[in-house]
C-alpha cells in the first residue's frame, strides 16, 4: 500500500449526515472487477443529472451544478468534511476506492460507520473523528472562506488550520503505523504464521466439526 504522507489541501464540505455507500458509489459500478477507475462516478447520482452507467465516460455528462464537488471553489480538494455516520450501509470497499480515486486523502466527520472506517485504512485514506462542535466550526470556516485549506500531520496527529490554529485528533496506533509506513497487512499477519497454526491446532481439538471440509 502507498504510504500516507502529510498533506495540505482544499476542504470540500458535504453537509449531510448518514451518507451511505450506495450514495458514495452506486451499485451499477460495483460490477467492475477492478480496484481503480471509480473516481469519475463518486457520488454519481448527486453529481450528474443523468443516470451513470459503468464503462461509459463521464466527460460529457450533464453536471448538477448545485452539488458541492461541482462548484469551482472546491475543485482540487483533497479533504472531505462531513457529518455523522458517514459511510453507513453496504460494506463495499468500492466506496473508499472511489473517494481515493477522486483525489481525497483525508475525511473528517464526527463519526464513521465501522466497516467503512476500517476500509479506509486499507486504502491509504485517513478518516479523522472530531467532536461535533469542532466539526460545526470547521463547516463555518469552509463556508465562509473560498479555498479554505488545512494541513494534516499524521505523525503528530494534528490538523493545522490556515489561521495557525491546531486541532489534535486520536487514532489507533496500529492503524497509524500501517498508514505511515504503507504496510501490507497480510504480510504482517503472515509473520505470525506459527502462532496462527498453533492456535488452529488447539481450536481443532476443541471444535473439530469446524474443520470438516465443505464439499459442494
Amino acid at each position, binding site marked *: 500500500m502507498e504510504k500516507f504522507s502529510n498533506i495540505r489541501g482544499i476542504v470540500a464540505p458535504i453537509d*449531510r*449526515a*448518514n451518507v*451511505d455507500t*450506495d*450514495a458514495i458509489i*452506486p*451499485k*451499477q459500478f*460495483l*460490477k*467492475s*472487477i*477492478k*480496484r481503480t477507475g471509480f473516481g469519475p462516478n463518486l457520488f454519481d*447520482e448527486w453529481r450528474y443529472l443523468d*443516470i451513470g452507467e*459503468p*464503462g461509459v465516460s463521464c466527460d460529457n455528462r450533464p453536471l448538477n451544478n448545485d452539488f458541492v464537488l461541482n462548484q469551482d471553489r472546491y475543485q482540487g480538494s483533497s479533504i472531505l468534511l462531513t457529518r*455523522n*455516520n458517514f459511510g*453507513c*450501509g*453496504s*460494506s*463495499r*470497499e468500492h466506496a*473508499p476506492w472511489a473517494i481515493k480515486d477522486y483525489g481525497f486523502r483525508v475525511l473528517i466527520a464526527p*463519526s464513521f*460507520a*465501522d*466497516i467503512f472506517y*476500517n*476500509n479506509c485504512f*486499507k*486504502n491509504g485514506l485517513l478518516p479523522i473523528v472530531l467532536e461535533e462542535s469542532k466539526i460545526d466550526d470547521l463547516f463555518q470556516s469552509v463556508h465562509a472562506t473560498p479555498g479554505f485549506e488545512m494541513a494534516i500531520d499524521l505523525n503528530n496527529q494534528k490538523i493545522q488550520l490556515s489561521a495557525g490554529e491546531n486541532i489534535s485528533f486520536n487514532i*489507533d*496506533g*496500529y492503524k497509524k503505523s500501517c498508514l505511515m509506513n504503507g504496510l*501490507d*497487512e*497480510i504480510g504482517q*499477519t*503472515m509473520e*505470525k504464521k506459527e*502462532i*496462527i497454526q498453533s*492456535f*488452529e491446532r488447539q*481450536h481443532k481439538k*476443541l*471444535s*473439530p*466439526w*469446524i474443520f*470438516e*471440509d*465443505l*464439499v*459442494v
Partner: protein
Amino acid sequence: MGTKTLYDKLWDSHLIHEDENGNGLLYIDRQLIHEVTSPQAFEGLRLSDRKPWRASANLAVADHNIPTENRDKGIADPVSALQVETLVNNCKAFHVPYIPMDDERQGIVHVVGPEQGATLPGMTIVCGDSHTATHGALGALAFGIGTSEVEHVMATQCLIQNKSKNMLVKVDGQLQKGVTAKDLVLCIIKKIGTAGGTGHTIEFAGEVVESLSVEERMTVCNMAIEAGARAGLIAVDEKTINYVKGRPFSPKGELWDKAIAYWKTLFSDADAKFDSIVSLDGNSIVPQITWGTSPEMGMDVGEAIPIAGKEEIENALEYMGLTNGGSLSDYKLDKIFIGSCTNSRIEDLRTAAEIVKGHKVADTIKIAMVVPGSGEVKNKAESEGLDKIFMEAGFEWREPGCSMCLAMNADRLESGERCASTSNRNFEGRQGQGGRTHLVSPIMAAAAAVNGHFVDVREILKAVV
C-alpha cells in the same frame, strides 16, 4: 468466569493474539463469498502469489447480479456476466467451494449459509457483505468486511479487529398478531437510530426474541447493521439446535454430540456486563413502515407522515414525494417486492401467501414480485403450493437472488416509482435511481399489494378469523 456476554465468549474463543493497542487477531472459521466484493481479493492473492490458507473453509455463491427470470438464457448484461464468470473461475483456480447458478442450493448468500449448515453456532463468520450480521441469529459471531479483508481472511484465516462494546436489546412481552420480526427490528432501529449501535455488537434477548423462530431471528440480526452494529447476536437455545440438525454441512454422529455440548454454553451469563442496555415492550409494537430514506425513518402504521422542519426530514420527504402530516395510505404504490436476505425465507413466503390467498393484486400495481431467498426455499414453497397462490393473485414468481433489494440485475424501480419492499435499505436510489422504497414486513407488503396502497395488516387478519 461466569461473567461473560455471548460476544465475549465468542471473541475470547477465537482470539489468537492481542497487540498493545488492543487490536485482536481473530481466527475466522468460515468465510462466505459472493461475486461483487471478491474479484479484487482474488486478484490481490494472485498478484502477491498467495494461496488460500484453508480453501474449504470458504463457500461461494453468486447472488447479486443474477437474473431472476429466464435464467437458462444466462446473464444478458455482459458486465454482470463477467463478474459472475470471474467468481466461477476464481473459485476453480483457488479450490474454493462454489455453488453454481443452476444448482438448487443457489440463493442469497445469507440464506444459503444457514440453510446448508455452513453457518454453525459458535463460529466466527465473515463475508464481504454488511448483512453477514444475519448469521448471528444462530449464536455465531458474524460480520461484514471489506474486500481487502476478504483477501486477508483468505490468505491467513484471520482478521485484525478491535473488540466492540456490548449492547443488549431486550424485548419483553409478546408480539401482537400481525406484528412480525421485521416490525420488531424496524422499531429497534427507529429507537436507537442508524448510528446507535456503531462500535457495538448487539445481543437481542428477552421473551419476544426467545419466542421467535430461527428464521425470524435472522430477520432481526440481518438488520443489526442498519442500527450501526456490525454484528447482531442471539443466544443458542433448543430452537437453534433443532434448526441446525440434519443440514448438509452440519456435524454428524459423534461430532454432533460434541458440538451441541459446546453450543449449549453459548449464551450471556446472568451477571454479564453490557456497556448499554435498551429495553422495548413487545406488546406495544405495531406494524412498521419507513417513510424516509434511512431505515431509522420509520413510523407506526396509521401514524401521520412526519412534519418537515429539520432539513434532513425535508430532504427525505421531498425525495419520497410525500407531503408532511398526510396519511401514507393515500399514496398509490407502483411495485411490490417480497424478497431479500431480510425476508425471503419459507416462513416469510408462507405468511405473505396467507394474506394474498383468494385476492388479486390491485390493478394500479405495475409489478408485484416474490423472489425466494434460495432454490431450496423456492422448491419448498412450490411443494406447498405457495407459488400458485402468488401467481393466481397476479404476483410474479421468480428465481432466487438479491434482485430488487439493490437492483444490480434487471429488477429495479424507475425514477419516481413507489415500492413496498421487504428488504432492508430505503436509501436514495437503492432500488433504482429516483425509486422510492418503503420498508415493511412480508405480510404488510402482501396486504399493500392487494389494496394498491398501505393498510394495517392487522385489520385483514381480523377479518380472516
